[in-house]
């Protein structure tokens, strides 16, 4: 057997599909030919490593608990919807801020609710003193604060994941945080504690959260 013929049999051999005379011939060629011997040994050793090398990482110990917590209160059919809701929450909040910035709501610096940890007193932004303090700067949005808030939201998401807290609860918190932002933005801009036309409502037309290529896996 020549090398070229031998090489054509490598895959069948490695797939475990070579037997009989051809297998014997390949075996004989392997003994004589250092190049084919090395090539086959390389594939066998690689296969061995891929098969049996231990993973350096393991799944989080509470993975099952967290996963099942997501499914606790909702019937199976609506889990996906709930998950998507969570994905919307972060981008939606940011989009709301950006949209308001574009609309010119933030004609003064905005105090973001993000700095306030749950349970701590929130800054008294509705006090006349505070409103008077906020100087008009001409900037439509304080990017630094926005970035800070987005990072904090990101951290909160990670923390929720680690603590296994329910997604629904987090969704509610994010919504109320967004409403805080809107409220404070309004206070900062005109001194009234009122979100126009939508008390307690989430801004209409949330951005489409799902990337286009997500659609083809929705049919499962």
């Amino acid at each position, binding site marked *: 057997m020549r090398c070229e013929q031998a090489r054509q049999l*490598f*895959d069948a051999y*490695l*797939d*475990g599909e070579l037997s009989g005379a051809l297998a014997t011939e390949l075996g004989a060629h392997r003994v004589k030919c*250092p190049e084919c*011997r*090395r*090539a086959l*040994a*390389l*594939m*066998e*050793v*690689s*296969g*061995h*490593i*891929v*098969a*049996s*090398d*231990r*993973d*350096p*990482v*393991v*799944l*989080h110990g509470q*993975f*099952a608990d*967290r*996963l*099942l917590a*997501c*499914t606790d209160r909702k*019937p*199976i*059919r609506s*889990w*996906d919807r709930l*998950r998507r809701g969570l994905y919307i929450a972060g981008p939606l909040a940011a989009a709301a801020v950006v949209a308001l910035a574009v609309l010119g709501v933030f004609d003064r610096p905005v105090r973001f609710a993000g700095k306030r940890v749950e349970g701590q007193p929130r800054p008294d932004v509705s006090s006349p003193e505070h409103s008077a303090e906020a100087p008009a700067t001409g900037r439509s949005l304080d990017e630094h604060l926005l970035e800070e808030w987005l990072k904090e939201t990101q951290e909160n998401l990670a923390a929720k994941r680690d603590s296994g807290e329910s997604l629904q609860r987090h969704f509610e918190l994010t919504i109320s945080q967004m409403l805080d932002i809107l409220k404070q933005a309004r206070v900062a801009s005109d001194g009234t504690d009122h979100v126009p036309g939508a008390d307690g409502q989430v801004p209409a037309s949330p951005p489409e959260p799902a*990337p286009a*290529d*997500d659609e*083809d*896996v929705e049919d*499962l």
Partner: protein
Amino acid sequence: MARGIERETAVTPSREYEKQLVGRALADDRLALRKLVELHKDRLFSFIWRMARNHHDAEEICQEAFLKAFASLDTFSSEYRFSTWLFTIGYRVCLNHLRRKRALTGELDFTALPHERHGALPASIESEEAGRLKELVWSAVDRLSAPQRATLVLFYRHELSCHEMAQVLELPVATVKSHLHRARHRLRELLESVTEHELQEFRNRAGAAG
């Protein structure tokens, strides 16, 4: 032969047991759901981590795969193994993730993201050379295309047949075989610097280690 090597695989539940679990889960039996998760989570994670190469992403993908599987549990056909079906969903989610990531990194022109360690820290019995060879092999595996990497990992690590791989990748058996064969061919090119002596050493040690 590389096949049939002992490895750390979980006990595979019988088809009948799987069918029972799925039936109970559909009847909203929480224990059955938990059992399905416990039985399959580590294997799925191992596969997905080798594809995504990021711990956090792999966990997210696994979670999404399970949630999608549970959401469409009533469409599960018992002619498949539950694990095969779950891997199919996981692979789809993972491909979407990789596509998104590539689009993102391409657009922003990031340099290649740092990958996590390939293998476990070397055990005391493992020589530096063996560790280096493992690192080389996994680095080469990382450079394969997604379907090539998937077939290689599913064939060797998860011991799936070509027929089962075809189900997971949702491709014809011939295409799957071609991906596996091209993966091997590419590995041979990428690992050209590895000498026969190194391979022999590795085998001797692997043999000695049991």
